[in-house]
């Protein structure tokens, strides 16, 4: 019995919803000088694309919702327009 065909089981996969970085029209850009490491951006990011260690953003999957920029008490994130290719 081939399990994959028999049972409707899925496996956790990065980008299960596709390359969601392409959804963005604006992107968060961190100014590391302003960041005090409070981690609010990390916990409020719905997608978990902000790294706990250095608050760097995984732009492959960041959807550009902008919550990090609104919630940052230091205003360390700026939302900037995606570069037009």
């Amino acid at each position: 019995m081939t399990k994959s065909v028999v049972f409707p089981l899925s496996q956790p996969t990065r980008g299960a919803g596709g390359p969601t970085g392409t959804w963005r029209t604006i992107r968060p850009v961190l100014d590391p000088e302003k960041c005090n490491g409070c981690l609010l951006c990390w916990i409020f990011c719905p997608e978990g694309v902000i790294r706990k260690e250095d608050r760097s953003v995984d732009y492959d999957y960041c959807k550009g919702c902008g919550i990090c920029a609104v919630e940052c008490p230091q205003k360390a994130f700026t939302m900037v327009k995606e570069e037009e290719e």
Partner: protein
Amino acid sequence: MSVKLKDFSETEFVVSGSAACAGCPSVMALRVVGKALGENAIMIMTPSCAVASIGLLPKSCYSVPTLNICFASAGASAGGMSLALDALYEKGRLQGEKPTVFNWVGDGGTYDIGFQGISAAAERNDDFIHFCYNNEAYSNTGVQRSGATPLYATTTTTPFGKEVNRKNLPLLMLEHRIPYVATASLAYPMDLYRKVAKAKSIKGFKYIEVHAPCYPGWKFAASDTVQMSRLAVKSGAWMLWEGEYGKLTLNNPTALYAQGKAATIPVEEYIGCQGRYAHLMKSPEKDTYLAELEEEVKRGLIFMAGRAEL
């Protein structure tokens, strides 16, 4: 007990690149829940945005093992799964610590179609946590009214505003005299984390409802999702509290508002920026409506403060 964000575990229930809307409150809250529950957990979902967010088979955005079952099934399925795990661990067919079984279900699956099963599981005191992420509408199917949709809010099935109020489901769950009930908010992640950790440590039926403003449904900017959650609490429209076996305790800041030690912000500051209330804000009777909603909030606070005395 105070927990610091840096102490939150690395556990991630949500894998980046989900199919959820940008800024979705469900995946946001679920990340906090995952950190509080840890790896040893099994999730059950019924049709909802959280299911639409998974991605398509054979891919999934959830790293926690997840069962997707039918809409009215959450209460019975979680109860059944938890009891079956008890049997398998007692018989030695599974070894180690029993995983925490939890439901991640919307307000449709909790307030409405799923309520019978959830009420029955609560009465049986089945051992699992039921989470309701309450976005106050059937957002998955395009924002129709639910039993959690508040008075005057527009949805696609209440295009001129809902004419009746929402039910107080967390209170109904408290009246089941279950071991633990709590309400929480996206804007207060420490409070949510603490409540989840507490629920995890208690055997029996636990209910946690997370207020989850849905920007496409409520019509505000995605970036303001946490802000909207905060305004809901600060206006008194959403209250933070917890209860054990029918005994209710209000949490701050709700407790301060109820005791008159702090003032709520006007309800207009909360709803005025939501498109679902635009018809009220433009109405010639705007002030009457706002006064009514303000009165509703006041009454809620007085009622819950009184209930907390019991």
